[in-house]
C-alpha cells in the first residue's frame, strides 16, 4: 500500500504541476508574452493528444495479440500530415476564415449553417467519444490497480479510482477549458499543459524502451534477435485489417473532435502546419519504435496470462525499477488526461453551441434581445457539458464492465467519428455536396456503425439480443449485425468500416445529386471549396439603423460589454458615422456574425443575428459574385474577347470604307481623264479644221463646205456629250422634275422606235413587237421612259453584230410592267455585264458612237421612276429588262 500512497502523492504533485503550467501560460498570454507559447513545436506537441492511453498502453497489448497491426493506427495520421497540402492546409484555412469552433460547426457551417446537422454531428461525436473517454478511465484505473494490489494478473478494479480520476479531470478541464468564452481563442493554458504532457509521455515510453532494449535485451542487435526468436518472430498481419486501419486511423485523425480542436481551432498560424507535417510523424514514429521490444520482453519475463496492455508498467516493476515504473505510469496518466481534457473541451463546445444555446434562445422569453449578459449561460452550459461528457465516459466504463481489450474500444470509437469524413471532405472539395446529402450520409453511416459495432460492443445480450447476432433480427439472416447482406467471415471492425463508410458516402453523393441546395448552402459551399480564392465571402445581411442598438445589446451579452463596445466603436470610426453606433452595413453584420460564431458557433450566431436583423437576403448577385476566380477570369476574358471582336469588326468596316474611298478616288480619276479625253477629241478636230479654214488660202468651196460641216458635226457631238453629262449630273443629284402623265405603253414604244430609226447609222433592225400586250396604261414620266427605250433600241442598232439583226420587245403587264429588249447578237461577256451601266463604259471601241453615258443615264432614270433596268443574261443575245411601276408612286421617290 505504501507504493499506492506514493503513487497518489506523485499523481497529485504532477496534477499540481500541470495546474501551475497552465496557470503560468495563461498569465503569460494575458501579459502578451506568449510568443514562445505559439511556436510550431508547441503546436506539434499538442497534436500528440492523438496518442492517448490507448496507444500508450494498448499498442503493446495489440502487438502481443495481433503482431504489427498496431503500427497501422500511427501510419494513417502520419500519411495525413505528410499530405497536409491536400486536406489539412485547406481545413485550417477554412477554420480560420470561418472562425469554426468544432467539427460540428464545420459541417453545419458548410451546409448552410444548419443546426440540425450540427446537432447530428454533436450527437455522433458524443456517442463516438464516450467509449474513448471510458477507455482512458479504464487504463488509468488499471494502472493504479497494478501498483495498489500488486496483482498484475487480474487487473480488476477494487475501489472508485475511475470516479476520482474522472472528477479530477472534469475539474481541471472546467478550470482551464472555460476561462474565456471565445472557443476560437487559444486555450493557452490547456495547450501548454498538453504540450508538456506530450513530452512526458514520449519521454516515459522512450525511457522504458531504452531500458528494455539496452538493459534487458542486450542492445539493438540482441533485441532484433530476441524478437525473431519470440512469438512475434514472424511477420503476420491480416491484410484487410492492416489496410483498413491505415485508412480508418487517417480518417479518424481528420474527424476526431479533440484533434480538430488542436489542429484547426487552436491553430493560430498556418505555417505551423508545415513544421508539424514532418515533426508529428516523427513523434509518432518514436512513440511506436519500442513497442515490439517491450511486448517481446513482457512475453518472456512475465508469467503467462499477464495483461499485455500493462506491459509498459509491469515490465519495469518486475525488474524492481519502481522509479521507471512511476515514470511510465505518469506517461500513461498524461496520455489519458490530455486526451480527456481536450475531448471534453471540444465536446462541451459542441454541446453548448449546438444544443444548449439554440434551446435557450428558443425558450428564453424574448429571444436574443434580452438585455443582460448571457455569457454566464454559455459558460455554465459548457461546464455542465464537460462534466456530463466525462461522466458519460465513466458510465460507459461501468456499463461495459471494463473488460474488453483497450485497443478494441478505441477502434469502435474511431469507426464512429470517421462517419463525419464523407460530409467533411465532400464539403471542402465538392461544391455539389448538399445539406440533404450530408444528413443522409451521416444518418446511414451512423446507423450502420451503431447497429453493427457500437451496440454489440457492450457485449452480447446487453443491447443486441444474442439471437440477432446469430440469426439476424426477426430471423432475417442478411441483417445480422456482423454479416450484413450475408457477407460472413469478415473481421467485425472491417465489416463495419467498409459498410458504414460505403453507405455513408453513397448516401451523401446520391442525395446531394438528387437535391437542390438553398442559396446559403451554395454560398457557403463556394466559400469553403474556393477558400484560397477569396478568403472573405459575401453573405449579405440587410439591416436597418434602428437595429444597431439591439445588435449591440446582444453582442455585449456574448462578447462581454468591453469587447462588444470596442468592436462597435471601431466599426463606427471606420464608417465615420460620428456616433458610437455604426450603421448595420452588410460588411459589419458579417464581421459581427463571425465574432459571435467564435463564441457560440456559426449556426447559433447566424440564428441570433437573424432574430434581430430579420431574413438574410441571398440575392442572385451574391451567388454570381461568389463565382470563383475562374468564372471571374472567364467573364473577364469573355468581355475582352467581345471587345476584340468588336474591334475586329470596326477594323473590317474601316478597311472596307477605305477601299471604297480608294475605289471612288480611282473612279473619279478615271472619270476625269475619260471626260477630258471625250472633250478633247472633238475639240482637236474643231481646232484643226478651223485653223485650216483660217490659214489656208485657195480652198475650193467644196472643201470649205466639207471642213465647216466637220466642225459643225463635232460641235454637235460636243453639245450632246455636255447634254448627257448635265443630264446625268441632274439625275444623280435627284434634282430632276418628273413630268407625270398617263399614256399607253404602246405609244411610248412607237415613239422610241421611230426616233431610233431616224438616226440612220447602223444596220436596219427588224423589230418584233406584241401590240396586244403593249396595251398597258402607264402613269409616269413618259418622256423619260421613252428616252430609256430609245437608248436601248439605238444600242441594238449600233452594237448588234448579227447578219440580220432583229430586236424582240416583249411586254409582261401587271402592277409593275416588265419590258424585255432581246436581240439576236452575240451577247455580252460576264465582265462586260458588270460594267455596262457604269459611266463611259463601252462594250467595244470600234463603234465609238457615244460617250458611254447612255446606259448610266438609263439606270438613273429608271431608279428615279421607281423601277430598274438590268442586263438579262441567258437569252441567246444581248438582252435588257426594264421594270417600271404602272403607276408612279410618290413614295418611290
Amino acid at each position: 500500500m505504501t507504493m499506492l500512497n506514493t503513487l497518489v502523492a506523485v499523481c497529485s504533485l504532477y496534477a499540481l504541476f500541470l495546474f501551475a503550467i497552465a496557470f503560468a501560460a495563461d498569465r503569460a498570454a494575458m501579459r502578451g508574452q506568449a510568443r514562445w507559447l505559439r511556436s510550431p513545436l508547441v503546436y506539434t506537441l499538442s497534436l500528440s493528444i492523438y496518442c492517448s492511453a490507448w496507444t500508450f498502453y494498448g499498442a503493446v497489448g495489440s502487438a502481443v495479440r495481433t503482431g504489427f497491426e498496431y503500427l497501422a493506427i500511427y501510419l494513417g495520421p502520419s500519411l495525413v500530415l505528410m499530405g497536409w497540402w491536400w486536406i489539412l492546409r485547406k481545413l485550417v484555412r477554412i477554420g480560420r476564415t470561418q472562425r469554426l469552433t468544432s467539427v460540428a460547426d464545420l459541417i453545419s457551417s458548410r451546409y448552410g449553417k444548419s443546426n440540425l446537422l450540427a446537432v447530428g454531428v454533436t450527437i455522433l461525436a458524443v456517442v463516438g467519444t464516450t467509449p474513448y473517454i471510458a477507455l482512458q478511465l479504464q487504463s488509468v484505473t488499471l494502472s493504479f490497480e497494478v501498483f495498489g494490489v500488486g496483482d498484475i494478473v487480474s487487473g480488476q478494479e477494487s475501489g472508485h479510482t475511475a470516479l476520482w480520476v474522472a472528477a479530477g479531470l472534469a475539474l481541471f478541464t472546467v478550470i482551464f477549458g472555460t476561462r474565456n468564452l471565445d472557443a476560437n481563442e487559444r486555450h493557452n493554458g490547456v495547450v501548454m499543459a498538453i504540450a508538456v504532457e506530450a513530452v512526458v509521455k514520449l519521454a516515459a515510453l522512450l525511457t522504458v524502451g531504452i531500458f528494455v532494449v539496452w538493459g534487458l535485451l542486450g542492445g539493438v542487435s540482441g533485441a532484433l534477435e530476441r524478437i525473431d526468436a519470440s512469438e512475434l518472430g514472424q511477420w503476420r498481419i491480416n491484410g484487410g485489417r492492416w489496410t483498413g486501419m491505415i485508412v480508418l486511423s487517417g480518417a479518424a485523425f481528420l474527424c476526431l473532435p479533440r484533434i480538430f480542436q488542436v489542429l484547426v481551432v487552436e491553430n493560430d498560424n498556418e505555417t505551423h502546419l508545415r513544421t508539424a507535417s514532418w515533426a508529428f510523424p516523427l513523434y509518432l514514429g518514436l512513440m511506436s519504435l519500442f513497442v515490439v521490444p517491450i511486448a517481446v520482453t513482457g512475453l518472456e519475463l512475465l508469467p503467462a496470462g499477464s495483461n499485455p496492455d500493462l506491459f509498459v508498467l509491469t515490465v519495469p516493476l518486475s525488474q524492481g525499477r519502481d522509479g521507471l515504473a512511476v515514470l511510465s505510469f505518469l506517461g500513461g496518466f498524461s496520455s489519458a488526461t490530455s486526451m480527456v481534457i481536450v475531448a471534453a473541451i471540444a465536446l462541451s463546445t459542441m454541446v453548448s453551441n449546438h444544443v444548449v444555446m439554440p434551446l435557450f434562445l428558443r425558450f428564453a422569453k424574448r429571444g436574443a434581445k434580452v438585455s443582460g449578459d448571457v455569457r454566464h449561460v454559455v459558460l455554465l452550459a459548457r461546464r455542465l457539458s464537460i462534466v456530463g461528457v466525462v461522466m458519460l465516459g465513466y458510465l460507459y466504463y461501468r456499463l461495459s464492465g471494463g473488460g474488453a481489450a483497450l485497443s478494441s474500444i478505441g477502434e469502435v470509437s474511431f469507426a464512429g467519428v470517421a462517419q463525419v469524413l464523407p460530409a467533411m471532405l465532400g464539403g471542402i472539395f465538392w461544391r455539389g455536396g448538399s445539406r440533404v446529402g450530408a444528413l443522409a450520409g451521416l444518418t446511414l453511416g451512423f446507423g450502420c456503425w451503431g447497429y453493427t459495432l457500437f451496440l454489440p460492443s457492450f457485449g452480447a445480450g446487453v443491447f443486441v439480443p444474442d439471437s440477432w447476432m446469430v440469426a439476424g433480427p426477426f430471423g432475417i439472416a442478411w441483417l445480422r449485425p456482423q454479416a450484413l447482406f450475408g457477407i460472413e467471415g469478415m473481421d467485425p471492425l472491417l465489416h463495419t468500416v467498409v459498410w458504414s463508410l460505403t453507405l455513408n458516402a453513397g448516401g451523401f453523393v446520391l442525395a446531394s445529386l438528387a437535391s437542390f441546395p438553398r442559396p446559403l448552402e451554395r454560398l457557403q459551399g463556394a466559400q469553403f471549396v474556393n477558400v484560397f480564392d477569396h478568403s472573405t465571402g459575401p453573405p449579405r445581411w440587410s439591416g436597418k439603423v434602428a437595429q444597431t442598438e439591439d445588435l449591440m445589446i446582444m453582442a455585449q451579452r456574448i462578447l462581454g460589454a468591453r469587447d462588444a463596445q470596442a468592436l462597435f466603436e471601431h466599426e463606427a470610426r471606420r464608417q465615420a458615422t460620428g456616433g458610437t453606433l455604426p450603421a448595420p452595413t452588410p460588411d459589419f453584420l458579417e464581421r459581427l456574425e463571425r465574432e459571435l460564431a467564435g463564441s457560440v458557433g456559426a449556426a447559433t450566431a447566424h440564428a441570433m443575428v437573424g432574430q434581430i436583423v430579420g431574413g438574410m437576403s441571398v440575392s442572385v448577385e451574391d451567388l454570381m459574385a461568389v463565382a470563383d476566380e475562374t468564372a471571374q477570369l472567364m467573364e473577364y476574358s469573355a468581355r475582352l474577347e467581345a471587345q476584340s471582336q468588336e474591334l475586329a469588326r470596326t477594323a473590317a468596316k474601316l478597311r472596307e470604307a477605305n477601299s471604297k474611298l480608294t475605289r471612288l478616288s480611282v473612279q473619279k480619276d478615271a472619270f476625269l481623264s475619260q471626260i477630258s479625253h471625250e472633250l478633247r477629241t472633238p475639240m482637236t478636230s474643231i481646232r484643226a479644221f478651223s485653223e485650216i479654214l483660217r490659214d489656208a488660202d485657195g480652198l475650193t468651196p467644196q472643201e470649205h463646205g466639207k471642213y465647216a460641216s466637220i466642225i459643225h458635226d463635232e460641235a454637235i457631238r460636243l453639245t450632246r456629250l455636255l447634254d448627257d453629262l448635265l443630264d446625268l449630273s441632274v439625275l444623280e443629284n435627284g434634282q430632276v422634275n418628273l413630268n407625270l402623265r398617263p399614256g399607253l405603253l404602246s405609244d411610248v414604244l412607237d415613239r422610241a422606235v421611230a426616233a431610233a430609226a431616224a438616226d440612220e447609222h447602223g444596220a436596219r433592225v427588224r423589230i418584233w413587237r406584241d401590240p396586244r400586250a403593249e396595251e398597258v396604261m402607264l402613269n409616269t414620266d413618259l418622256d423619260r421612259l421613252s428616252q430609256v427605250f430609245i437608248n436601248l433600241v439605238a444600242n441594238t442598232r449600233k452594237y448588234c453584230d448579227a447578219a440580220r439583226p432583229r430586236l424582240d420587245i416583249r411586254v409582261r403587264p401587271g402592277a409593275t410592267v416588265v419590258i424585255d429588249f432581246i436581240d439576236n447578237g452575240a451577247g455580252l461577256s460576264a465582265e462586260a455585264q458588270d460594267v455596262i451601266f457604269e459611266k463611259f463604259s463601252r462594250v467595244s471601241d470600234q463603234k465609238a458612237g457615244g460617250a458611254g453615258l447612255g446606259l448610266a443615264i438609263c439606270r438613273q432614270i429608271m431608279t428615279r421612276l421607281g423601277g430598274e433596268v438590268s442586263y438579262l443574261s441567258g437569252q441567246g443575245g444581248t438582252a435588257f429588262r426594264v421594270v417600271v411601276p404602272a403607276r408612279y408612286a410618290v413614295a418611290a421617290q
Partner: protein
Amino acid sequence: MAQDGAGLRGKPLVFLERQSYRRRRVIDAARVLPFIGLLLWLLPLLWREEGAAAVRSSSAIVFLFGTWFALVGAAAVLSWKLAAQAREPGGAGPGGMGE
C-alpha cells in the same frame, strides 16, 4: 500581366519564372509524398507469412521504421524548402499557402 511587363525589360522574367517553377515543383513533391508513403506501407501486404521463407520481424521493423524516418526526412526537407520560398520576395505568401 506584371510578368509580361517584366519580360519586356529582359532578364527578370526568366528569373521569376524559374523561381515560381521551382515552387510549383516543390508543392508537387509535397503532394506526391503521402502517396509514396502509402505505397511503401502497403508493400507488407505482399510479404510471405508462412514457412521458412516468411519475412522475419526484425526485417519488418527495419523496413517499416526505415521508410518512416526516411519519409519524415523528406517531409522535413520539403517543409524547409517551402518555408524558404515563403520568405523570399514574391514568394507564395504566408506559409506558402498560395498556389
